[in-house]
């Protein structure tokens, strides 16, 4: 294994006044790996995700991403246009609430096409063709292409957000509770969709969730956070089946059996 990590996160710390958001978080993410981050509300997992994705400036730390064009670069040291370009090309961000990731006043096809145009696609016919293709891949029928997202159900909106994010072929996807707020039956379909896309596209992903069942099915690796710090990390089924830290043991033993 001589390849490089796709993402190297080291010593990320973010405080809000005197309060710790997240502290001293480090990990490497390899191409094709899916990492889950779990912890209760307020454990710092969303803060960490925002720091990595460049939505929030951490107090200290480095986020090195292996860019397609220039190799490993520190994302936090990039200027704003560079980072925005990265967010549109190599990266994707799937928000918990589809409203945060979609343009609600623009048609479904427009939502997907817009991201293509942002990276320079200009030919209307091929943009529409790709939009139709992607709506199909996320199981939205092509006769809904001109409808606006607000006419869609929550599950459809989430699938549309995924299509909008993945149409440009990113290599790294950040997901914040992607199945949160959805019915369990809709969740299952979304999980299957995400798993298939990750496999077909060789995507790497960082998924923040509080749902241990979701990480078991989606993530290769797992990081457990409490009070802003990582208390345990490792192979997903090892962390869940043989938890070492007191907090992880509590978390795992607290899940209700169906």
């Amino acid at each position: 294994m001589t390849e490089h990590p796709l993402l190297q996160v080291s010593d990320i710390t973010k405080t809000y006044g005197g309060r710790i958001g997240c502290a001293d978080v480090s990990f490497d993410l390899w191409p094709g790996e899916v990492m889950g981050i779990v912890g209760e509300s307020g454990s710092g997992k969303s803060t960490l995700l925002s720091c990595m994705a460049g939505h929030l400036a951490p107090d200290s730390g480095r986020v090195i991403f292996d860019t397609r064009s220039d190799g490993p670069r520190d994302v936090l040291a990039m200027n704003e246009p560079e980072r925005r370009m990265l967010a549109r090309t190599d990266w994707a961000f799937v928000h918990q609430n589809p409203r945060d990731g979609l343009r609600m006043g623009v048609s479904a096809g427009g939502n997907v096409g817009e991201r293509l145009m942002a990276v320079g696609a200009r030919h209307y016919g091929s943009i529409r063709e790709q939009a139709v293709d992607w709506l199909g891949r996320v199981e939205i029928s092509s006769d809904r292409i001109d409808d606006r997202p607000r006419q869609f159900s929550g599950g459809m909106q989430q699938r549309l957000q995924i299509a909008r994010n993945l149409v440009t072929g990113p290599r790294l996807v950040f997901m914040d509770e992607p199945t949160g707020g959805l019915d369990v039956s809709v969740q299952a379909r979304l999980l299957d969709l995400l798993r298939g896309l990750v496999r077909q596209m060789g995507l790497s992903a960082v998924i923040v969730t509080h749902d241990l069942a979701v990480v078991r099915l989606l993530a290769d690796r797992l990081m457990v956070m409490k009070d802003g710090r990582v208390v345990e990390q490792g192979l997903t089924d090892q962390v869940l089946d043989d938890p070492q830290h007191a907090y992880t043991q509590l978390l795992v033993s607290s899940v209700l059996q169906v």
Partner: protein
Amino acid sequence: MIAVANVSKSFTLHNQGSAVLPVMAGAALRVAAGECVGLIGASGSGKSTLMRMIWGNYRTDGGSIRVGETEVAGAEPREIIALRRGTLGYVSQFLRVVPRVPTIEVVAEPLMRLGVAPDAARARAETVLTRLNIPERLWTLSPTTFSGGEQQRVNIARGFIHDWPAMLLDEPTASLDAGNRAVVLDLIREAKSRGSAILGIFHDEDARNQVCDRLVDVTGFSEGL
């Protein structure tokens, strides 16, 4: 192919007064290519624990576990992921799948992860499912609604869809009728003849005698703890 040497393991129960339970010490065994070794010992003696340490979902505290070229004890997650992708197969007693995914996809998935084209992977899945007498009308349904015996066979189909150089089998013939049990025993014999190193737990004594070349009693790995 599989070599376990001087392996030890204990559980620390932080939420129950930090009790430390040593469960294994000095565990050792080897499984050569083309050989099937059965683990025996009373219930609770550590058969499944040892199996899980080799699979990597239980952590190994001391000693060495080698599967092919990989040292499992203390391995990085990505090393274990790579090991499971191409080298080590596992038939567990439980089927864990994304709800609503069709049986045929569940069975074909390990091949797709290895980069086999979806059509070829599905064709291979059909062959294995047919052999295990899962009727074609069930292939497009999710196995979550199947009977225990059917789920077990889906699990076995998934486990035998690829010619893994090493395999772990946890009670592969439990809850199967005589006909399907014979099919599974044949699958095991075929895997052996292709050179697979197989480590299994079989409570079914007759099945064990039919496929195992040797037995290892794990009771000795926890004596005196």
